[in-house]
């Protein structure tokens, strides 16, 4: 029976073309993700190299007693910057998530952290607003449509074409016939999904490692559970009343609700329960802090037209100028750090609430699992920002100590500059989190199947009477 169903499936042109279209879209999305990641990596590598070259050159000049290289102030507030780069995890090109909103590297100076962290890379806001065309989008949004196309008439269509009546007359149990049909189509959909994931990884990943194989298995498993859920939902819809058109419309409405409206509603709830602190107010607070710092230093800073120490001659003037700048930056940093932390705290609260509410939408659950596996979820980005803030504090302290103590920078000091370590991405932790999502999807699918089982047993009892009548 399975063989017969498979050959029927092969003869349905809309499914064949639909599957091919899906594979093509996955390949395009994977290529697109790879292009994005490659350009971001190239930018980061360039910035890192420039930063290293500058530090190396200054270290040499410091050895020769160059005043700019030996002045901790000139280095801290102009000549030297630290480029910190986020570690790129396997599968990142496949689930871009919201990583496109943040650069994967930051260039930090010893000025207040707002100066480095508030800036966002210039980009096309229209593109950002419509979202990325990545593999996670294609699979989470479009795979259900393919499943719906394959399943929307699985019971009603058989009834309408009279096949079910024929099967009953031939002595086969309708439920067994339908379960076999459903199972065959479910397995076929899962196979197409695995093919799509494999294709995505072949096109999207630059190198193959042990992690790539794990990514393939993990993505395949998550998406199998997702396909299983949609297949079960389609069957549950079909065992109810109505013709195949009605089921198609209901399933389309289900897709709209579960894939678009519920995530949007969750987003709305989360944004209203935990509204983000105001960026406008942050700017105003920064202004207050700057004003307060400037007032404290105003008398001195006017001597240098605020930031033109070059207009006054003498080493003492330079030292005094940089001490004044460091004092201002210290005041601003102290005032602004709690505000930046408030943003992070609120973001963590939002993530937590989203995680609790995401179970309402299998699409959100699946997307969460895929971004967790690719380390492009909010928590991974927050970990990077946290590490960056901590690094910034060490970087600032390194220079401020020397500015306050009027200690010239030496060749060795440049070697002792703080080094940034991107937070490690634990695959095991990600797998554990994704496993919870898979189990939830699988359990919902099983519940739907149980419901269908009950309804199909009733169908076994009703159909012979209908045919006899």
């Amino acid at each position, binding site marked *: 029976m399975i063989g017969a169903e498979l050959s029927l499936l092969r003869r349905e042109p*809309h499914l064949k073309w*639909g599957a091919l279209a899906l594979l093509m879209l996955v390949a*395009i999305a994977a290529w*697109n993700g790879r*292009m994005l990641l490659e350009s971001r990596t190239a*930018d980061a590598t*360039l910035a890192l190299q420039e930063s290293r070259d500058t530090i190396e050159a200054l270290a040499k000049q410091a050895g020769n007693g160059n005043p700019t290289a030996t002045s901790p102030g000139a280095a801290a507030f102009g000549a030297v910057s630290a480029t910190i780069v986020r570690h790129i995890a396997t599968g990142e090109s496949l689930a871009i998530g*919201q990583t496109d*909103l943040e*650069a994967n590297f930051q260039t930090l100076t010893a000025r207040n952290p707002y100066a480095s962290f*508030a*800036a966002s*890379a210039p*980009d*096309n*806001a*229209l*593109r*950002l*607003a*419509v*979202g*990325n*065309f990545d593999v996670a*989008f294609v699979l989470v949004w*479009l795979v259900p449509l393919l499943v719906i*196309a394959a399943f929307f008439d699985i019971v009603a269509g058989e009834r309408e074409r009279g096949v079910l009546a024929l099967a009953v007359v031939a002595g086969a149990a309708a439920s067994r016939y339908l379960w076999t049909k459903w199972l065959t189509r479910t397995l076929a959909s899962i196979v197409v999904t695995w093919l799509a994931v494999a294709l995505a990884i072949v096109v999207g990943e630059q190198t193959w490692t042990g992690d790539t194989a794990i990514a393939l298995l993990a993505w395949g498993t998550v998406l199998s559970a997702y396909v299983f859920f949609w297949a079960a939902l389609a069957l549950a819809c079909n065992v109810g009343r109505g013709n195949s*058109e009605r089921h*198609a*419309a209901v399933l389309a409405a289900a897709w709209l609700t579960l*894939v678009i409206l519920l*995530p*949007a509603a*969750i*987003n*709305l709830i*989360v*944004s209203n329960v935990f509204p*983000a*602190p105001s960026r*406008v107010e942050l*700017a*105003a607070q920064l*202004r207050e802090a*700057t*004003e307060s710092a*400037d*007032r404290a230093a*105003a008398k001195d*800073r*006017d001597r240098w*037209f*605020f*930031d033109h120490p070059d*207009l*006054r001659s003498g080493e003492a003037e330079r030292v005094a100028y940089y001490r004044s700048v460091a004092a201002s930056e210290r005041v601003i940093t102290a005032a602004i750090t709690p505000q930046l932390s408030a943003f992070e705290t*609120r973001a963590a609260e*939002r993530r937590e609430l*989203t995680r609790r509410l995401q179970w309402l939408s299998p699409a959100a659950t699946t997307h969460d699992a895929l971004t967790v596996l690719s380390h492009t979820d*909010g928590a991974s980005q927050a970990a990077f920002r946290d590490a960056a803030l901590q690094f910034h504090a060490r970087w600032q302290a390194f220079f401020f100590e020397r500015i306050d103590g009027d200690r010239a920078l030496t060749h060795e000091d440049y070697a002792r500059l703080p080094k940034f370590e991107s937070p490690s991405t634990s695959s095991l932790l990600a797998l554990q989190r994704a496993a919870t999502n898979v189990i939830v999807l699988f359990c919902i699918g099983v519940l739907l199947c149980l419901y269908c089982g009950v309804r199909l047993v009733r169908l076994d009892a009703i159909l012979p009477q209908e045919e006899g009548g």
Partner: protein
Amino acid sequence: MILTIANKEFRAILRDGRALYGAIVFALLGVLALVTGSIRYSELDAERLRAQEHVAEQWRAQGEKNPHSAAHYGQYAFRPALPLAFFDPGVQAFEGVSIWLEAHKRNFATGRPADDAAPLARFGELSLAFIYQALLPLGILLLAYPAFAAERDTGTLRQLMATGIDGRLLFVGKFVGIGAAVLVLAAPVTILATFALLLATGTRWLAHAALLLMFYAWFAAIVLAASLWVSAVSSSARSALLVLLAIWAVAVFVLPRIAGDLGRVVAPVPGAQRLQAAIERDLAEGIDGESPASKIEKRRQQLYRLYKVDDDHALPINMQGIIFGIQDEISNAVYDKHFGRLQAAVDAQVDLYEAISLLSPRMALMLVSQELSGTSIGAQRRFADGAERFRRRLMTTLNTDITLHSRSDDPAYRAGADLWRAAGEYRFDYEPLRDSLRRCGAAAMVLLLWTLLTIGGGLIAARRLGSNP
């Protein structure tokens, strides 16, 4: 005849319980989007007004200081929330809300609301514009797909055509009937939204709102004509529904993302690091072959000749003010060059997006809707350019004050509240409607092409119904 057919279609739809349920869901979602959109708009508007006033007050009350210190202290420009943003938030979340207007530098807008967005934000925002652009077409196609195809399934189409009726009359009648039903079903939310706008802002934005309504109605008519066309050429209602659902998913969700990312590949925006490096290089070397130091020296010699002196101290003006002015002229030219390139890259991406909207009228409508709601890239650019023009005026005022009211090497010079008041504060000017409309030309052309295509195709298909019902 047309009215009879229209009347029959209209009554059939209103009698159908599913249409009523659909209208209720549409109204509920619309009201939710309206309420949350209005609250968000009012909060943002009040907050930004407060912040703008606060910053202006800080500027006026900054006390006595050297004008160049005040130039570094600078001002902030906050982007106002335009009233129709409650309808279509557009790209606002992906653009910064404030720009620091300081000496020597043109800064990017910072504080993108999207940076604080909840994790599911990229699934979509439940705004009125989204509901009208994505859900209304779904409602229309669900109402229209059986128009011809279901009659073909039941055999009534053959009977109808046998009476000798012109298929085109049938097409127009169904178009009018279903269109009227769509108007009735979508009316409550539309009226409520218009009423809310009138209540909040009077008639100031009524022309924008009327044009928005017109474009949305135009779009709905295109979707309806396309749905009837597909229904007329489909072999069955089932296949009409499947084809229309597939077209809807691709046109509404897939193509905008592909277009956005294709733009990024074809016309990449320079990364922040590269942009900054290029700006710094040009600032140091000049962009017209003449170094800043050479320009300053040339101007100095001119002034020496004019005042017949041979030393800065002998000048009756402050040479430093002149130098600041020259530095600003140079930096303005450099920023114009690099911001111009950046904007050209974004424009190329938007042009490509417009070109691809030939495949999806939703994309064209999205652009028009953002323009008329004041939430487009063009509107953001107007804000940023206006802020930059003000910054340049502000710097010129402050540099002129230094030049005319102090002497060279006079760090003790202080200006006070009179100058700060005379320099003014940043104020946003609303864009005239005709300027916004000017940017809608290409998108309107796309909608016109779609109108010709769908109505023409639909009428041709309807005429053929007579020979092949």
